[in-house]
């Protein structure tokens, strides 16, 4: 939040190093002390410290996801290992897109990029990555003083309009077939103009605050939150594997964090796999399953659980 000292002066393009990320993690450890024991917060951040191990900053790219794929391919062809946690950033993207065949508007001023995560999580933890990414971004936005909330799965909304979106795709490296999670992110930070079709549904942080935000500082904040989110997934996995129990049985702390930031539970929604093109049914959200699925109560009183798809609030 602004009163915690996030500088609000606008910058000129992204310029971040892995060292900057390391310093931000130390600040994140301090921020987490309000709700976590110091040693626990530090332990979690150590697990997630791979995020931002390498940071690439580009003036422009066609798509950050494409750059991630070509980077992994090139590294393999050279017989080198990809640094887990590599973050690729670009001031603007030329041909970005959202899920399915949707366009994503990514001009200068926003935070556009991709995190490369070598998939070493168990399936039950990996399924929570999309929720964790949303939690990280929502927490970062709230640190700027904006009252953002999450809409299942991971849309970050302010006043019902979307300020951030994510695209998570698996990628198998061409030679060794190693599996990576490519986590594409787009946050409307200082960009203020949207195409006509997005004007009523998209919003930027600077529009909300009425002033620009230091993009580098926000990027570091987001990466620190991502470190914590990934660290939480790894720490919980270790606790369960050692049979120490990870908090309440069946209720992962990532789900608690998501629920604390979300306004989805209790809302009347329209559900669809591709809700824009093919809305399916209306229902009321009654909760989340222990693996992050959405529990929906239809008008006939029956419940249905959805693990993929999208909702829009009614």
């Amino acid at each position, binding site marked *: 939040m602004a009163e915690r000292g996030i500088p609000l002066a606008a910058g000129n393009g992204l310029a971040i190093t892995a060292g900057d990320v390391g310093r931000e993690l130390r600040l994140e450890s301090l921020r987490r002390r309000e709700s976590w024991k110091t040693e626990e917060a530090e332990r979690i951040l150590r697990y997630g410290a791979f995020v931002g191990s390498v940071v690439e900053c580009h003036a422009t790219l066609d798509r950050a996801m494409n750059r991630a794929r070509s980077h992994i391919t090139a590294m393999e062809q050279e017989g080198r290992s990809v640094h887990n946690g590599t973050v690729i950033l670009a001031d603007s993207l030329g041909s970005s897109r959202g899920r399915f065949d949707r366009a994503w508007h990514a001009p200068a001023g926003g935070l556009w990029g991709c995190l490369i995560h070598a998939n070493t999580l168990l399936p039950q933890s990996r399924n929570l990555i*999309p929720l964790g990414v949303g939690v990280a971004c929502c927490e970062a936005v709230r640190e700027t003083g904006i009252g953002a909330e999450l809409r299942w799965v991971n849309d970050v909304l302010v006043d019902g309009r979307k300020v951030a979106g994510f695209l*998570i795709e698996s990628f198998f490296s061409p030679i060794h077939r190693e599996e990576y999670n490519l986590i594409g992110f787009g946050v409307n930070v200082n960009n203020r103009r949207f195409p006509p079709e997005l004007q009523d549904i998209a919003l930027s942080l600077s529009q909300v605050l009425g002033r620009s935000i230091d993009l580098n500082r926000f990027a570091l904040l987001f990466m620190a939150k991502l470190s914590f989110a990934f660290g939480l997934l790894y720490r919980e996995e270790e606790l369960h594997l050692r049979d120490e129990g990870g908090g309440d049985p069946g209720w992962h702390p990532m789900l608690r964090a998501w629920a604390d930031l979300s306004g989805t539970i209790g809302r009347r929604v329209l559900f669809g796999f591709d809700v824009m093109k093919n809305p399916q049914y209306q229902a009321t959200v009654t909760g989340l399953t222990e693996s992050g699925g959405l529990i929906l109560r*239809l008008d006939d009183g029956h419940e*249905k659980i959805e693990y*993929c798809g999208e909702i829009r609030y009614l």
Partner: protein
Amino acid sequence: MSSEIDFDEILSKYRSDPFDYVDVCATHTGVVRFRVKAGDAVEAPGGEWLQIPGTALYEITRERNPKLIAAQTNGTVSDIRTDLEGQFVEAGERLLTIRHPLKKKEIIENILKEVLYLFRAPERAKYYFALDVQSRIDKKGARAVTIDAGEEVLTMSLMKRDTPIYYSGERGVIHSVYFSPGVSVNQGDPLLGVCAPEKLPLIQKIITRVKADWDSE
């Protein structure tokens, strides 16, 4: 895939016993309490969005957490392991069998599944065609689209994480599509039925023969 099919044998098998026998197994370890008995009729999930659960078959309790398991297919309980009532069972233990009456369309599909190469779902998730394959299908129709091993044919979507699915199997045309976008597919269930282009006439012959035989009754 054999190019020689004994139609008479296959059809006589389905004519004498037009049923599928669907085994219902323990979803996980736990203590089992049955909710049905041999001979009971059971219903599959219903409703426009399949939101109405099927008939409750058994309850399984693990760590004081009871879970009710419902039928996924309609039919009659033909065999039930009553010796397991109140007992602790392992995951995958067969608990009962449902005798499911087959419709003509299901018989055709069953025969085709014996002769097509079935490309199965790696995980329970929703699936849709990769953009390139979808555009080829839109232009020419699925049965004119040939896919090769290693080709990205589908996208698996789970919790808003999309995973490309690469085809592994014999080169061929997409004859049957067993999934619908937006509907979850269980792990191991077929997604695509693929056959070599030169075998398409044989497949058509099977369909025509079954339709003709069943219609003539």
